[in-house]
């Protein structure tokens, strides 16, 4: 086998059946090997960024390794945003790029870039292969690294000559690491039992550790009131009456209030991101903190933990659950208080039932949440619509909510939905986008058409960059700058140009029928939803401010006219 065939051999050994890629000069030996391969489904996207983000969506929705492939130079550089997106959200990904032949590296050859050098900061690990005989071992190690511990992207850059060279080495056999020991939890239990107002704070680490069921059991057994980060949405399920929803900049008043007043914060698989904590000095000021995470570097990074527990979330949560089954926590008053806050300060605003009223983002998302099947995967883009989905859609599982959390990548949603549809072929997959984000990877409509993917696209179109406009209104004295998108294309006609049917709606009484129509259609379909330009996401915390200082709609006029932030 040559180097290229060894790559496919590794795919087969690790049951990697779907990869996302785009061919070009230096990766051609791998594409040549694909011609004779029967076990690998190669999905041709229309831009390398689409490949990387589709691999990301595939990994998030399917709980599997995402694989993307590109050529050297522009192929590799186009991957970078998608790989950085995976890195910031700890998504397991294998990236394979062709490089100019070994002898030409460093000669400014055609389509040569220093891929290894320029990607060091966005990978968990990376390789430049200098011998075909190393390739089987590197593939083995890379596939393991991407998925182990705290997952992340691993990049293998392979010169063209190495792909063509016969390699005789065999892949080494990797022995399993076996179950990990459970850390001592006695102090954690003592702290939990001593607390009068303990709060569960969970993030994306729960699903990254495949610990969804253990977490759900722990949350139910402990009956701890809980808040979630953007990536932790769905951890508690849609039926938990202890879940106060998302905290942070666009979190619920109930969630931020509970964090403010709790006396113990039990952080599970979260890294205390600034969008979640607000100003750290005033974050959970009365609370001791137990931090449970797989990554030692996250513990004490931003806020010192009173107790740090590093290890496998499955093991730790199972042990904690067993202890609490025997002796439940006595926190009835605190639970009742949190439920009251959730009633008055959750995302429960009444819909405007006036049939001719313009559609609002929250009203649309709540209808979508009621109508879409329980196992629907929603892939968001970035902006106001992303926050409306996070606030108002009731997710039953974290893998149903795909959102670019760390990097905040506009254009994530459409390719991520493509990846999610390949990972969940029988499920409903919906990309909820804004008009700005949709245009960032609109070329992937061609991928949807090519594979006749039945995914649904919803564009909440306010003809502007709504989140930027909102912050300019509130924090920059309403001085709008470069946010108008009122020359957007006709999205309905655009979809039809890709042989994808589309609908336009603009009134409240059209929401239900619009959603039901696209869901019932046997194939891809786009729903274009006109919403008002001036709608904002409420509440909001000014970047850098304390979560106590949430601004809601009632303060809008005062903020818009008085506040100016340099």
């Amino acid at each position, binding site marked *: 086998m040559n180097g290229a065939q060894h790559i496919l051999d590794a795919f087969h050994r690790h049951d990697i059946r779907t990869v996302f890629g785009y061919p070009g000069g230096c990766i051609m030996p791998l594409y040549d090997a694909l011609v004779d391969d029967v076990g690998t489904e190669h999905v041709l996207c229309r831009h390398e960024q689409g490949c990387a983000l589709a691999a990301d969506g595939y990994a998030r929705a399917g709980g599997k390794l995402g694989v993307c492939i590109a050529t050297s130079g522009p192929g590799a550089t186009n991957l970078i945003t998608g790989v950085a997106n995976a890195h910031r959200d700890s998504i397991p990904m294998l990236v394979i790029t062709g490089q100019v032949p070994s002898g030409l590296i460093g000669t400014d050859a055609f389509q040569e870039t220093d891929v290894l050098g320029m990607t*060091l900061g966005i990978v968990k*690990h990376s*390789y430049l292969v200098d011998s075909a005989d190393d390739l089987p071992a590197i593939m083995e190690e890379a596939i393991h690294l991407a998925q182990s511990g705290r997952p992340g992207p691993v990049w293998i850059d392979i010169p063209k000559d190495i792909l063509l060279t016969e390699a005789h080495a065999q892949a080494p056999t990797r022995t399993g690491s076996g179950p990990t020991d459970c850390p001592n939890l006695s102090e954690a239990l003592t702290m939990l039992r001593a607390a009068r107002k303990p709060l569960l704070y969970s993030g994306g680490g729960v699903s990254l550790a495949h610990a969804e069921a253990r977490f759900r059991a722990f949350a139910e057994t402990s009956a701890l009131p809980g808040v979630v980060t953007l990536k932790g949405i769905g951890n508690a399920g849609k039926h938990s009456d202890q879940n106060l929803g998302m905290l942070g900049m666009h979190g619920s008043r109930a969630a931020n209030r509970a964090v403010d007043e709790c006396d113990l914060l039990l952080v599970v698989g979260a890294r205390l991101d600034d969008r979640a904590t607000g100003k750290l000095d005033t974050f959970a000021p009365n609370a001791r903190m137990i931090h449970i995470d797989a*990554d*030692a*570097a996250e513990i*004490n*990074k931003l806020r010192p933990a009173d107790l740090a527990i590093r290890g496998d979330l499955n093991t730790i949560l199972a042990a904690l659950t067993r202890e609490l089954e025997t002796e439940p926590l006595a926190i009835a008053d605190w639970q009742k208080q949190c439920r009251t806050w959730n009633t008055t300060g959750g995302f429960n605003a009444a819909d405007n039932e006036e049939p001719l009223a313009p559609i609002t983002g929250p009203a649309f998302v709540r209808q979508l949440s009621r109508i879409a099947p329980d196992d629907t995967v929603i892939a968001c883009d970035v902006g106001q619509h992303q926050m409306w989905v996070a606030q108002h859609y009731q997710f039953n599982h974290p893998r149903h909510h795909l959102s670019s959390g760390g990097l905040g990548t506009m254009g994530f949603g459409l390719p991520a939905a493509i990846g999610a549809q390949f990972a969940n072929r029988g499920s409903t997959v919906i990309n909820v986008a804004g008009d700005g984000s949709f245009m960032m990877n609109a070329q992937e409509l061609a991928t949807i058409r090519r594979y006749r993917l039945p995914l649904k696209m919803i564009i909440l179109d306010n003809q502007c960059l709504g989140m930027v406009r909102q912050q300019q209104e509130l924090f920059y004295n309403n001085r709008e700058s470069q946010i108008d998108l009122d020359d957007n294309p006709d999205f309905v006609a655009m979809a039809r140009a890709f042989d994808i049917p589309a609908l336009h709606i603009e009134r409240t009484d059209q929401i239900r029928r619009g959603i039901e129509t696209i869901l019932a259609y046997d194939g891809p379909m786009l729903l274009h939803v006109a919403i008002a330009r001036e709608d904002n996401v409420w509440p909001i915390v000014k970047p850098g401010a304390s979560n106590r200082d949430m601004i809601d709609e009632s303060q809008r006029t005062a903020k818009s006219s008085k506040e100016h932030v340099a």
Partner: protein
Amino acid sequence: MNPQRQTDTPSYTLTCQMSHEAAALERLCQVVRIRGFRIARMAVESAGDELAIALTLEGTRPINMLKSQLEKLHTVGDVVLGVHEMKQTKTA
């Protein structure tokens, strides 16, 4: 128009072993930089497939945070912190 002022910048020594892979030192130095430290002195010795690296670093952030980030690098092992000093530096 800020007057010159005296500040105390902590200085640390740190040693580690690293695989002699492509871009090894770049990988290490990038983490040092992005996590808020400046390299004042660097000594590297190659022994077979391994590099022995000794760094003198300056920075105001907690050094243990850098240590834990370096330990996450797949090809870095045995990160050992040495003596902690305070260095007088002038900043504008």
